[in-house]
């Protein structure tokens, strides 16, 4: 509970957030936005970001409640505390938005991203790629005599690190899903 007795995680709390509003430092926040799964809703949410000049570092969306027609949009965004508060308020007031959770502000959360890496090579570099994949707990999901496709899940930082290691070993292509996140605990 905040000092103002407003329920944590409620989308209406943003105007009351009491962090230093004038901090010029940019923060990265992961927002979970629960929306009605109707056509045009994703465009409306994305349009808010482009129209008002906010950043999107990562965005994922999928239906999470088929019967209730709800989708969950996970957005990783950057901004000063004041901008982050404004983003949350702008999201929360949208008609098709049911709730907005700031997973970064609301306590510990787990974040995961899935990525596929295509790495081509022969000889020592091919073996090295496979060895590193084991260390990172990546799975081989496709293989030829000259290439692997690795599947890896983890935090964005872990995937970045894996990508950095694969680059000199023959990285050809990569595909990333963007972040999915949930708060820890019940």
């Amino acid at each position, binding site marked *: 509970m905040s000092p103002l007795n407003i329920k944590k995680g409620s989308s209406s709390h943003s105007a*009351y957030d009491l962090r230093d509003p004038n901090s010029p430092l940019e923060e990265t926040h992961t927002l979970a936005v629960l929306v009605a799964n109707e056509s045009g809703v994703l465009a409306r949410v994305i349009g808010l970001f482009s129209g008002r000049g906010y950043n999107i570092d990562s965005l994922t969306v999928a239906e999470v409640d088929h019967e209730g027609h709800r989708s969950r949009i996970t957005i990783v965004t950057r901004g000063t505390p004041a901008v982050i508060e404004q983003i949350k308020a702008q999201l929360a007031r949208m008609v098709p938005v049911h709730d907005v959770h700031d997973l970064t502000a609301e306590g510990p959360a787990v974040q995961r991203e899935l990525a596929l890496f295509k790495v081509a090579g022969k000889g020592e570099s091919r073996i090295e790629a496979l060895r590193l994949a084991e260390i990172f707990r990546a799975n081989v999901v496709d293989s030829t005599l000259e290439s692997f496709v690795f599947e890896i899940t983890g935090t964005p930082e872990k995937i970045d690190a894996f990508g950095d290691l694969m680059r000199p070993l023959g990285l050809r292509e990569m595909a990333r899903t963007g972040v999915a996140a949930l708060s820890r605990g019940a």
Partner: protein
Amino acid sequence: MTKAMTGARMVVQALKDQGVEVIFGYPGGAVLPIYDEIFQQNDIRHILVRHEQGAVHMAEGYARSTGKPGVVLVTSGPGATNAVTGLTDALLDSIPLVVLSGQVPTFMIGTDGFQEADTVGITRPCTKMNWLVKDTEKLSETIHQAFHVATQGRPGPVLIDIPKDVQFATGTYTPREKIKATHYQPKVKGDIDQITRLVEMMETAERPLFYTGGGVINSGPAASQLLREMVEATGFPITSTLMGLGSYPASGKAWLGMLGMHGLYEANLAMHGCDLMINVGARFDDRITGRIKDFSPHSKKAHIDIDPSSINKVIRVDVPIVGDVGHVLEDMLRLWKARGRKVNKEGLAKWWAQINEWRAVNCLDFKNSEKTIKPQYALQRLEALTKGMDRYITTEVGQHQMWAAQFLGFEDPNRWMTSGGLGTMGYGLPASIGVQVAHPDALVINVAGEASWLMNMQEMGTAMQFRTPVKQFILNNERLGMVRQWQELLHGERYSHSWSESLPDFVKLAEAFGCKGIKCSDPKDLDDAIMDMIRYPGPVIFDCLVEKHENCFPMIPSGKPHNEMLLGEDDTQGVIGAKGAVLV
């Protein structure tokens, strides 16, 4: 009772269910089935406009002057794109509108069909919400939901795009009362702890000030009544934005006049000098704040707004209260009375003494002339001659708009219709028609500049057809006055394309439309000419030739704080730096 009917009939039925009496529209291929239904009934009146932008502004005038949502019907493609300016205008000024647009049949969507446009795509950023209805079964529910969304919370425009085959197909009509509650239920009651904090601050503040806006008017007449009661009971001074004029009467003792870029000296200095600012339904627009860094540096600020995203967007406030102005004012007043009606009497007396010194500057003073009509004088006379009448004012955008806000007094809410946020030239004439449709017996005057007025002058045809006796009071300086003023002050007097050449003869133009034209250029004739205009039972185009190079003062130049106002020509030399010129 649910029953089967075509989509087109459903549209008309749903509008009737919602209590709609009038719609503004223009037919076309993709809405023909709906027009066929309109033809076969007499409950809803249809006003045929001359351009879809006019339809939306008329609906805005109608909505703003009645408090009810305005309804618009346009066809697909160009019909919908022409509505975009009006939708954006309504979004920025929080005007409830329901716009229905036709669309090509569902099986043609995406084929670049004739008069096809991605209407929901184009209007997404300029509506509060919009829908493309692909199934007749969902049509009536969507329309009822649209009215709910347009009017609840912070009001705004919504659009429903209806493909032609959906209008022809048969489905089940769901009446208004059978609609299941939507999750969209913005909260109207303010947090009582925050309200208590504000009341405590009000009890001790030495230099308090009410800064009110369009939210008071949107909240309904009861909110204006509560505001008046609060101001009278506390004795606090009050100023208002352009959008909020009329919520507190201009004749009231505590009234400081409008604030902002062309606001009154006493209002702006009170904003700068106050120690408690109570923002009631305003949004710290850049025309109000001037330079953010120096905005009201010594005050605690409270902000009452129904839209949480308005709070802390521009100005960080100390007491945020999310809620409907009417509900919050009621709680404030009740609490303040229950706690013993305390105010800081000594502080207030000093504060008023200070304010009265500022008032004595008489910032609206201007050099009058016996030879040419000064625009300020024209508005002073209009005010004097129409005072006490059942009067509604609309405006276009520019100098005349600011002078109207300065020189006309509004005693009641919903009497002043102007394009504030978007600043849409061409708003006033159609808006005046919309107001007149809602108030057939009232005196409706559009205070205009000749350049703005020409932008939607085709709507005089609408005024004639539907016998709306709107008075077009055009302050004609043969210039784009506000552009010219900025070029004089900011761009070295290089008047790039800011004069009106080849203007029509407005009297002949009036005759061409079949209404009355009046021309006046001599201050001595002005009163009689204005009375002629008022007495004439039909529409009038009044060509008031005014001083060409008059500037609008007071003025806070862009990028300056409130305490660096320009009061007149003598103040203008070299005051606006390059930084200010970048701002608008």
